[in-house]
C-alpha cells in the first residue's frame, strides 16, 4: 500500500517535471520519467523523482527572465523609499538612541544599495535580492529586540520595526508573485507559438 503510494508519488512528480521543464530541457524530463519505469524499489523511485524535480526546478529557475521592467522599477522605487525613511529615522533617533540608529542606518544603506542595483543592473539576480532581504529581516529582528530605556518609545520602535518587516516582505512577495506569474504566462505563450 505504502509502496504503491510512493510509486504513484514518484510518477506524479516526474509528470510534473515534464510540465515544468523549460523547452530546451524537455527531453531530459522525458528521459527521467522513462528511467523511473526501471526502478523497482518504491523508496528508490521516490528519491529518484525528488532529485529529478529539484534538477528540473533549478533549470526552470535559470531560464526565467526576472528582468520584467515594471516589476524591477516598482521594487527599486519601493526599496529607495524605504531607504529614505530609514535615513530620516536615523537622523531623528541618533541623539537619543545611537545603537538603534546604527541598525536602522545599516538597513537604510542596504535598501539604498538594493534600489540602485535594481535600477541599474542588467543582470538582476532575484536570489541575491532575496538573500539581502532575508538578511535584513534579521536586522529588523535585532531592532525589535533592542532594549530602549523609555518604555513608551520601546513599544513604538518595536511596532515600527515590525511594520517595516511586514511592509517590505509584502513588497518582495508581491513582486516575485507578479514576476513569476507573468513570466510563466509569457513563456507558456511562447511555447504555444503565441506572442510573448
Amino acid at each position, binding site marked *: 500500500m505504502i509502496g504503491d503510494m510512493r510509486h504513484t508519488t514518484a510518477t506524479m512528480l516526474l509528470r510534473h517535471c515534464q510540465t515544468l521543464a523549460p523547452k530546451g530541457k524537455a527531453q531530459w524530463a522525458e528521459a527521467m520519467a522513462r*528511467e523511473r519505469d*526501471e526502478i523497482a524499489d518504491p523508496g528508490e523511485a521516490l528519491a*529518484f523523482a*525528488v532529485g529529478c524535480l529539484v*534538477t528540473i526546478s533549478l533549470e526552470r529557475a535559470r531560464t526565467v527572465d526576472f528582468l520584467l521592467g515594471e516589476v524591477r522599477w516598482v521594487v527599486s522605487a519601493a526599496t529607495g523609499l524605504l531607504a529614505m525613511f530609514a535615513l530620516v529615522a536615523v537622523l531623528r533617533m541618533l541623539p537619543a538612541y545611537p545603537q538603534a540608529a546604527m541598525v536602522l542606518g545599516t538597513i537604510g544603506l542596504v535598501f539604498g544599495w538594493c534600489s540602485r542595483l535594481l535600477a541599474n543592473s542588467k*543582470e538582476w539576480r532575484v536570489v541575491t535580492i532575496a538573500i539581502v532581504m532575508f538578511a535584513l529581516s534579521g536586522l529588523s529582528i535585532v531592532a525589535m529586540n533592542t532594549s530602549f530605556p523609555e518604555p513608551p518609545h520601546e513599544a513604538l520602535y518595536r511596532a515600527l520595526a515590525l511594520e517595516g518587516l511586514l511592509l517590505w516582505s509584502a513588497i518582495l512577495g508581491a513582486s516575485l508573485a507578479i514576476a513569476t506569474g507573468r513570466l510563466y504566462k509569457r513563456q507558456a505563450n511562447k511555447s504555444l507559438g503565441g506572442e510573448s
Partner: protein
Amino acid sequence: MKRNRPLSNEARTLMQALADAPSRWRHGYDLIKETGLKSGTLYPILMRLSDRGLLEAQWLEPEQLGKPARHAYRLTAKGLEFYRELPTLNTETDPIPYGAQVQA
C-alpha cells in the same frame, strides 16, 4: 555569462564511469547505480556535459518488446579527450567521490 568552474568530484566520478567503456551507451539509472550519485546530482552534470559538447545522448530502443525507448549517454571524442587531460585524482588527499570504493 558562462562560467568555467573546475570539475567537481562528482562530475569526475561520472566521467570516469563513462570513460571506462567509452563506446557503450549508458542509461541514467545504470549510472546512478554504478557511481552512487543521486539523481539530483547526476542529471545536472549530464546536462552540463551535454551543453559543453562533452556528452552525446540518444534515445535507444530497448531489447525487450513493449518497453519505451530510454535516453542513453556516452562521452563524445571531445569529452574523452577532456577527461584524459584532467589531472589525476589523488585519493589520499582529495575527497573520495560519491559511491566510490576504496581499494585496500
